[in-house]
């Protein structure tokens, strides 16, 4: 196989991305003729149906099973791990699309959905990249649409401001990351992960420098998962962004950050497992404490869940920092359950925001009286975050804690457990407000699209909470493949 030949396998490897590209074209074309169509939600429905179709195709035909291979001359890897995270992104984007319906400022704008889809392509590529150039391109393809989406509410100064903040922070961390990449390339002479590893094993990179590179790359990736101390953008961005986008940032975008970290660490730094696992364990500890402690004092519900999502990045990092197959499996499971959970949270916040015009915690007062269905969805999602069965968050937490014990990280386990106690306090406080005090507010109609999205989320939370075996078997393959990097 010559380097310039495009094989069928290459095309096969990026079928979802090709389909998304087609979908983007359709969306843009429909957008041109939109004025002739009465239905304001037509674009979001097209996007949703298109994404559902792509999800089905991917899930049914593109599961690589145990096979691992490179495509595009080693640019991307086709394995169960990239498959898994591609699905996470697609599902996240589909649910985000549903929540974006009936949002008067975004639902009739083709560019909003086009941006969303471009970011999906970028993330999908991030999950599969096995080359520094490819990875960097994918990261930027993801980040630029997200900057735009966060600042999309141009009539709202706060949204624009938060978009700008997100952009500045993102650009800065990307630059640091790129510096790390350039050092890697400079010393190893290659951009392929596998060849860099060979160079490192041949001691071409001095150990001190390697640690410096590790720090630089962790800065870049840490910002993607909003781990401490690279979390500063998250509360502002979540608060200012259109709420569905905040949900998307906290789930799909975060998940992709994690797969990149996992892939990068086990491939490039596999010769230095102690240093990167320790570094990630420290970040995990700090993220959990900072996220949970700051969440305690929040008055704004979006900020509260932004800090909670920082804390969850910490829990998920416990699994990654254990550096074992079990740990990666646990983190992946956590991310899957977290996808549905946090999307449900931000979905409910979005709907409440629509009806009350506020995203303060007090807007949730008496939600159980106004709209019991919505309050129950919120209850399920919050309990899942708190790690209460029979919801996905419980088994996810147990799995990462088991991974910590398995890797002899007892101190990290204890920190994780202390943090789940702290977190329970504010989760219960939010639930108390939702379920007790009542106020007379016109209840918001929950549209069909939103109902569908919430139903999918609740189903996801419960299914991941009571049926474990099939998913774990699948993730076993994904994490084993990830570890077997050559």
């Amino acid at each position, binding site marked *: 196989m010559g380097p310039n030949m495009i094989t069928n396998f290459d095309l096969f490897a990026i079928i979802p991305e090709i389909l998304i590209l087609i979908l983007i074209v359709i969306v843009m074309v429909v957008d041109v003729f939109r004025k002739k169509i009465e239905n304001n939600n037509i674009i979001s429905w097209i996007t949703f149906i298109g994404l559902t179709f792509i999800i089905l195709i991917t899930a049914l035909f593109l599961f690589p099973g145990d096979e691992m291979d490179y495509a595009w001359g080693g640019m991307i890897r086709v394995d169960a791990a990239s498959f898994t995270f591609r699905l996470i992104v697609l599902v996240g984007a589909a649910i985000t699309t549903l929540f974006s319906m009936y949002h008067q400022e975004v639902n009739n704008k083709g560019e909003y959905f086009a941006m969303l889809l471009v970011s999906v392509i970028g993330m999908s590529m991030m999950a599969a990249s096995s080359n520094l150039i490819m990875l960097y391109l994918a990261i930027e393809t993801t980040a630029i649409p997200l900057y735009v989406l966060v600042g999309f509410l141009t009539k709202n100064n706060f949204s624009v401001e938060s978009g700008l903040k997100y952009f500045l922070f993102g650009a800065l961390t990307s630059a640091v990351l790129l510096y790390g990449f350039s050092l890697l390339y400079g010393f190893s002479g290659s951009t392929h992960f596998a060849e860099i590893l060979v160079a490192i094993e041949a001691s071409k990179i001095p150990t001190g420098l390697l640690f410096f590179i590790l720090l630089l790359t962790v800065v870049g990736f840490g910002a993607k998962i909003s781990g401490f101390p690279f979390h500063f953008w998250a509360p502002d961005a979540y608060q200012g962004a259109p709420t569905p986008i905040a949900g998307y940032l906290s789930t799909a975008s975060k998940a992709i950050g994690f797969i990149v970290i996992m892939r990068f660490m086990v491939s490039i730094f596999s010769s230095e497992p102690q240093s990167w696992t320790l570094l990630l364990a420290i970040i995990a500890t700090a993220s959990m404490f900072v996220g949970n402690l700051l969440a305690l004092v929040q008055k704004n519900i979006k900020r509260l869940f932004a800090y909670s999502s920082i804390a969850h990045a910490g829990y998920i990092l416990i699994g990654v920092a254990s550096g074992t197959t079990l740990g990666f499996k646990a983190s992946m499971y956590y991310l899957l359950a977290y996808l549905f959970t946090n999307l449900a949270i931000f979905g409910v916040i979005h709907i409440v925001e629509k009806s009350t015009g506020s995203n303060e915690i007090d807007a949730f007062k008496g939600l159980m009286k106004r709209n019991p269905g919505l309050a129950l969805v919120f209850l399920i999602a919050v309990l899942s975050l708190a790690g209460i*069965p029979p919801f996905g968050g*419980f088994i996810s937490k*147990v799995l990462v*804690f*088991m991974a910590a014990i398995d890797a002899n990280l007892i101190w990290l386990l204890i920190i994780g*457990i202390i943090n789940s*106690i702290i977190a329970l306090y504010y989760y219960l406080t939010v639930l108390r407000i939702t*379920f007790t005090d009542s106020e007379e507010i016109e209840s918001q109609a929950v549209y069909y699209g939103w109902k569908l999205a919430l139903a999918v989320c609740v189903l996801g939370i419960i299914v991941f909470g009571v049926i*474990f075996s099939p998913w*774990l078997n699948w993730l076993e393959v994904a994490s084993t493949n990830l570890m077997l990097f050559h």
Partner: protein
Amino acid sequence: MGFPILSVTIFIPLLAGLIILLFGRQRQSWIRPIALVASSLVLLLTLILWASYSIEQAGYQFIEYIPWLPDLGISYHLGVDGIGIAMLVLTGLVVFTGVLVSWNIENRPNEFFSYLMFLATSVLGVFSSLDLFLLFFFLELAVFPKYLMIVIWGSPKTRNYGGMKLTLYLFIGSVLALIGALAIYQASPERTFDLLLLENAGFSPEMQRIWFPFVFLGFAILGGIFPFHSWAPDGHVAAPTAISMLLAGVEMKVGVFAALRVGIMLLPEGAKHWATWILVLATINVVYGAFIAMIQKDFKYVIGFSSVSHMGLVLIGFASLNYDGLLGAGLQMFSHGVMTALFFSIVGMVYDRTHTRDIASLGGLYKIMPWATIGFIIGGLVSMGMPGLSGFIAEIPIYMGVWRVAPIVAIISVISIVVTAAYILLVVRKVFFGDLPQEFEGKIKDITIKDKIAIGVLSLFMIVIGLVPGLMVPLIETGVNHILVILGGA
């Protein structure tokens, strides 16, 4: 595997709770009948379990086994021994009477009864679990119904504080136990959560000594062990009546039951090593709880602290690690559960009518509610350990058992009998006898027929067990013998 009677018992309330939650708003009149039918079915099924448990055969019975996550050694494994049966019957009784005494809840009844049913599922599940993971699964299930029921229907002044305190303490206890449980899992040769396999896992004595405090203390916090007992009175007082009944009557038993099942039975060497410390803490529970109960001005706090005191006796029974102590502890778990449920139900009935729990401003209620008075006196006699009632057959073996290992503990803790008698008689005299205060004259009515049924059922069990100990002693004995084998064999 025959008819999955345990699963049916566990999931009837869950199903009823879901139905009530989803459809109760539209059909208000269905809520209470559904809850009553479900709780009666649970009581009936637990009684059937009691009747059909084979004492000759002993061991775990009504086993159900479905692999859940075989890779990690997690399975849906149910089964009960004699102690488990007693606990299931206790739960059936308390849930049934809890529904009866909550009949007049008017504020959001659909949520109230559905959360009550969820709580029942959680508790029944813990008592039937033969898998450590499953046990935690059911245990944590109770977090949100407990919390929400206290903050929504609890007593307005303290519900936010009491509810949060209780939930956090119980959560801390359960995660502490979870750390220990994960360590047990990690140390087990088969990497399993299956309790039956873990019982024979043969953990090294060092490992048992390190992890026993985590598991035992974690679960014992749920049982109100000193110095982590303060959630119990605060939480019970803040909670609505039915929840106080369930929390004190059953949830505290969940704690000590799990401490026995996971702590003592899986880590017997650890139990032997730490028994002295448990005895010290439990003795403080017994004596301190009783003295504090005596100086309370609030009717409900008296009962709250009396629970702390009585649960200490259960822990003393455990820590004596011999036949008498364990037998007494098992009986005390049942007896105290029924008794405290009775107490809290009567406190609730009194409060609903007088709107005060201040002992000083109550009095003479005997004339208006004789049934409640008699019920309270029966409960009081059980509490004092009067012969002929269930409290006697429970407490005497505990004292006998602990006498053999640490006579000083027996001597100190016997003080509590006197103190208990003092505060119970004091409350009975001040609340039910004496003169009826002017403001209640003609304003308060007798308790309803449903309340009377609840009092009658609970009293009946205490009297029958007291008069015919043979109904329950052999049952508990089967469980105790098994524990003794484990303790001896280790």
